[in-house]
């Protein structure tokens, strides 16, 4: 009795927190049924095997052709088909980026979801599975495979990234692949083939390990030569720049006619949308997911790139403008700002360049001495650090801390200590906020593990 009460309170809390944190629809829907989403190709196969499912699926697809949601639902047969499909794995299936048959998977996804959204939405839910791994996992990979050198002030990180890629056969091959297709050559005699260049770029970002591609794309720079090299990564002369700058909303409409481009854009909007509920301003504080969706846009007409080779400020944008938007100017500016003035994306790029994962936001950065003094006293008990699995244990490189603390003794252990202190600090500052944001932290498992001793004590008290 008491147990069920406590459990229901837990469930309720869980739900409230989910809605409170403004979680994207995908995480909410996956927690509703407690089932992990299958990929849509597999879900389609499962549906084909079931006569009831496949006939309803066909009906629904017929219903959706050329009709919006409301007119479709006036038809009883269509409504019944939708109700049946909502119970099937097809309804909340997802795709994986770079998977085999990715296009087929997305076709199946959009065949259901396109007609069910309310008209032309500004943001669409991502058809891709949420990424749960963190940036720190990439740092760890990088340090294992390529002996990622700590960032010394002299070295050019972007040049180091090129070296790391050249020394890896797969990265070298696919990098040369897109460069040779995208490169116009110094004489400009032969124009580049943009379509082939884009395809090769997509292959590079889909098939090469992120530890190499992210290092090339998001290296941090202290001088212009480095920043120019970073800007040149995607061979912008062919893949990015064009004779004219189209209107951003036209570019978006064009992207949405292509199922792959539409999926990547929706994924970007899902993972890099500025959220003021998280410390990092990224959804669920997941930098990795944002960087992954950003790089997923490269090789489409909407490819973003660094607008200049400035070292102080990072500004990225697709090749488009809001001139000639007419009465849509506001919507256009809003669309463009998600690239040019996106604090989540900027923080994620900087965090990767510095070799840190979840860091303190610049506003609250304090002199290092006070940080270490403060955190030494307030040792965070392990119980308070939410289930400790992904974010906090994995930080292996903490280059920014090394840089900041260059006057201090540079022993490895100390750096490691500082790293942990930094991450602990971020949990210290806003412990409440963090708990709300990290969906795992308030899972039922966690909830019951805390309350279980209480529940067990109750009958004991009653017996006494």
């Amino acid at each position: 009795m008491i147990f069920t009460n406590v459990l229901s309170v837990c469930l309720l809390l869980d739900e409230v927190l989910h809605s409170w944190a403004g979680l994207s629809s995908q995480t909410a829907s996956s927690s509703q049924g407690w089932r992990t989403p299958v990929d849509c190709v597999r879900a389609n196969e499962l549906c084909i095997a079931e006569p009831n499912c496949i006939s309803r699926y066909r009906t629904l697809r017929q219903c959706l052709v050329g009709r919006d949601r409301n007119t479709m639902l006036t038809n009883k047969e269509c409504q019944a088909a939708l109700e049946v499909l909502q119970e099937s794995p097809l309804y909340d299936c997802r795709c994986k980026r770079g998977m085999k048959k990715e296009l087929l998977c997305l076709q199946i996804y959009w065949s259901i979801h396109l007609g069910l959204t309310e008209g032309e939405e500004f943001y669409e839910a991502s058809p891709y599975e949420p990424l749960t791994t963190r940036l720190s996992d990439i740092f760890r990979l990088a340090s294992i495979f390529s002996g990622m050198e700590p960032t010394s002030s002299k070295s050019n990180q972007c040049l180091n990234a090129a070296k790391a890629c050249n020394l890896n056969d797969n990265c070298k091959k696919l990098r040369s692949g897109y460069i040779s297709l995208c490169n116009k050559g110094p004489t400009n005699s032969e124009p580049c083939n943009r379509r082939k260049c884009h395809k090769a770029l997509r292959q590079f970002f889909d098939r090469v390990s992120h530890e190499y591609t992210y290092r090339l794309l998001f290296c941090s720079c202290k001088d212009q030569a480095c920043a120019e090299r970073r800007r040149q990564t995607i061979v912008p002369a062919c893949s990015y720049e064009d004779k004219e700058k189209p209107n951003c909303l036209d570019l978006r409409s064009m992207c949405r006619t292509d199922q792959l481009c539409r999926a990547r854009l929706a994924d970007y909007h899902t993972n890099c949308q500025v959220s003021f509920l998280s410390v990092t301003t990224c959804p669920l504080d997941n930098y990795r997911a944002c960087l992954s969706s950003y790089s997923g846009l490269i090789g489409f007409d909407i490819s973003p790139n660094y607008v200049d080779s400035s070292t102080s400020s990072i500004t990225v944008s697709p090749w488009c403008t809001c001139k000639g938007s007419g009465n849509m100017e506001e919507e256009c500016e809003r669309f463009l700002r998600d690239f040019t003035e996106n604090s989540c994306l900027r923080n994620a790029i900087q965090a990767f360049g510095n070799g840190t994962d979840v860091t303190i936001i610049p506003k609250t950065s304090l002199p290092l001495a006070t940080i270490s003094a403060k955190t030494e006293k307030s040792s965070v008990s392990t119980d308070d650090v939410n289930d400790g699995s992904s974010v906090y244990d994995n930080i292996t490189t903490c280059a920014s801390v090394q840089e900041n603390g260059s006057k201090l003794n540079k022993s490895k252990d100390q750096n490691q200590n500082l790293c942990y202190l930094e991450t602990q600090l971020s949990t210290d500052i806003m412990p409440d906020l963090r708990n709300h944001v990290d969906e795992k932290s308030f899972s039922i498992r966690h909830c019951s593990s805390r309350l279980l001793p209480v529940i067990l004590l109750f009958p004991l008290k009653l017996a006494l």
Partner: protein
Amino acid sequence: NRMKRARARHKPCELKELEVSVSDLGLGYESDETILFRYCSGTCDTSLRNYDLSLKNMRSKKKIKKEKMRARPCCRPLLYDDDISFLDVYNHYYTIKELSAKTCGCV
């Protein structure tokens, strides 16, 4: 030590690799990018063919006089590695073909 050196000199033909900067290649490109240069090195003593022996004998018997020729097999690339691209200091991209060896053999 001398034995070691001697043995090193008589290693059979094989693929070796070296990390070099593009500028070091001496091809006229100016770039600080580091690449992996794979090359063939070693001796081919064990793969002397009847061709080589006969050619040697013809020459010593003065049947072949002025022509240039080689009566020993040579450790050379059998296949070349994929193209390699890099960005130079003037921010131009270049792609070089057949720069690096992929497999070696005595030919």
